[in-house]
């Protein structure tokens, strides 16, 4: 009974990662970490392959993936956006910035835009409290962001496309 498909090269890649941890189910979190590092996300079929390789129920893999907010089953956008909601950023209006990003991109936190360009996540403190509120896009940090600057920042990336 086949319901899910994955290319042979990806299956081999996952097997290699599992092999690197001796197919030890106690290393599940590390294996998921490495796999997400390779593929960017952990779709159902990838979890199935890991489960069968480690000889554990796929429900257990899924339980771990949904427990840790780090793991994601949806692919990140080309430009992942992180909004800092640490104390300093929060009191200086990070939530308003986040709302504006959600409105501009028409997605919620944890989602990816339909064109695959942007994904939106929150984090707690990037260590740049002096620049609060802070957002980062694909590793580039923007400080003193206000809702009215959001559109302009995003347009840089649309322009690059």
């Amino acid at each position, binding site marked *: *009974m086949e319901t*899910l498909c*994955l*290319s042979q*090269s990806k299956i081999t890649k996952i097997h290699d990662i599992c092999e690197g941890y001796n197919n030890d189910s106690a290393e599940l979190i590390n294996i998921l970490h490495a796999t997400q590092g390779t593929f960017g996300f952990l779709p159902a079929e990838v979890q199935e392959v890991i489960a069968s390789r480690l000889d554990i129920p*796929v*429900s257990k893999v*899924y339980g771990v993936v949904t427990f840790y907010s780090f793991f994601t089953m949806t692919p990140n956008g080309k430009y992942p956006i992180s909004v800092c909601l640490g104390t300093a950023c929060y009191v200086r209006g990070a939530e308003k910035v986040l709302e504006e990003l959600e409105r501009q991109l028409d997605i919620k936190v944890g989602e990816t835009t339909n064109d695959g360009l942007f994904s939106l996540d929150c984090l707690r403190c990037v260590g740049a409290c002096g620049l609060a509120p802070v957002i980062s896009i694909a590793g580039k940090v923007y400080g003193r962001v206000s809702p009215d600057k959001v559109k302009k920042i995003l347009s840089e990336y649309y322009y690059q496309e």
Partner: protein
Amino acid sequence: METVKVIIDRKELEVPKGTTILEAAKSIGIRIPTLCHMKLEDLNYENNPGSCRICVVEVEGRRNLAPACKTECTEGLVVKTYTSRVMNARRTVMELILSNHPFECLTCSKNGYCELQTIAHDLGIREVRYTGEQSVFPIDRSPSIVRNMNKCIMCRRCETMCNEIQTVGALTAVHRGFEAAVSTAFEKDMTGSTCSYCGQCVSICPVNALSGRNNQQEVLNALADPDKIVIVQTAPAVRAALGRDFGFEPGTLVTGKMVSALRYLGFDYVFDTDFAADLTIMEEGTELLHRLSDYLKGDKEVKIPLMTSCCPGWVSFVEQHYPDLSSHLSTAKSPQQMFGAIAKNYFAENLGVARDKIVVVSVMPCLAKKYEASRPEFAVDGNPDVDISIYTRELARLIRYANINFEELPDSDFDRPLGESTGAAIIFGTTGGVIEAACRTAYELYTGKRLEQIDIEELRGLEGIRSATIDFNGLPLKIGIAHGLGNARKLIEEVRNGTSPYHAIEIMACPGGCIGGGGQPFHKGNMKVLRKRASALYQADRDKTIRRSHENPYIIQLYKEYLGEPCGALSHKLLHTHYFDRKEIVGILDETKNEE
């Protein structure tokens, strides 16, 4: 063994080092309440996440309250289990749990059997001071089990049962915090999961988050339909447990009262699945002898060991996890389905009515039997051999519903011909019983001699995995027995590795066999209850005049008049089945098509 002295509620006692306060208290009759803790003594399994925090107690010298289930006794420990501080904490915890639990007790099918309800009552909760958001999860209805996570208290007993004891791996805790729930992989419905419908999660759920599918109304509708002939069959394990719901001691056989109640409910014929169990022995026993004879002739293709196929939870388990070994399963249908096939063909023809005039209802100790009855291969033109399957607790509810005073009912006998059975059939309800019944018949058919020692004690008991060698006149027949799917997995792994020493293996998915089925009155992990149910069935076997399936006069008549011979052409058509590969695998994508 090193022991320590402790004082619990002013009582001094000595316990082995490492004993938890909860267990120590229990040993002197102090029942500290808990919702998550579950210990299945004989199975060596414990669910002990320490998550409910209802069992907190005061330990002298400790600043914080201690969870009794997680705190081990040390020398000189002084414990108080009901100070006002303890009771305040317990009530607060309880109110917090209740703040996210629907107040539907009156309409809940667990009403009266719910552990949350009992503890709320014992703690004297009269109001819940906390209000706020409540979880809203969709209700998942499979043919056998209903999963309502709005009622879940996250004790995770079901997760332990499904993963550690049964090794089915269908249920798991997903997400975290307020969104946390027990679900399946990718939060599919249970029908899309690896669930085998054994129903053991339902047996140990303290609330009604997991419950059996309810089909009582369909039974009532059939009984009210004047155009239908409604036949009921009752499985062997039901009669040893039904009484429990009416205040009888565990293991009281209520066969006669059950038959009277069913007749009172309005069934046209009250028959016995035991008849079909005798029939199963004829078919499965013959199949075993055929396979053995081929095997002894040196046939390398023949599938030995033969594995029993009576248990639908086990059959699902093989189809999901070991489809490559399904040819080791006996092709004989389960007694429930054999009964349905005989009722809708042989019996219908004898009555001179069409099969769709007949409604076959089965009363089973089992939730998986509902799923089994719904399998499409067990229907002819959409008309199933078994129309409705209900479990023991549902029958108890129907009896109450019909205003029957069960305790006062006189005893009566099953109808003939499909109500006649032997002692061999009755022991089908307990682990080891099917293979013992099969041995009684196979021995006599194989050797042509009388089996003198009819009680085959080496096959009995409640150990998870057992084995025995029965001397078939010089042929040492090696038998393996397992109950509980985790134990079954160990035996089938040996088959896969080619190291299985057995000729025949009996498997029952539930701990104890059908007597511990998911549809039985809740035994709450108390193995003493299971032992009593098992001895009741062995006693019923001893009380029977006929104790060998092949000597059942109505079985002999059935073969003579209708079926011909065991494993013959008509038997194959009506009484045997085939299995499917239900294992989910990730297929390999054709990369040239470039669509992923």
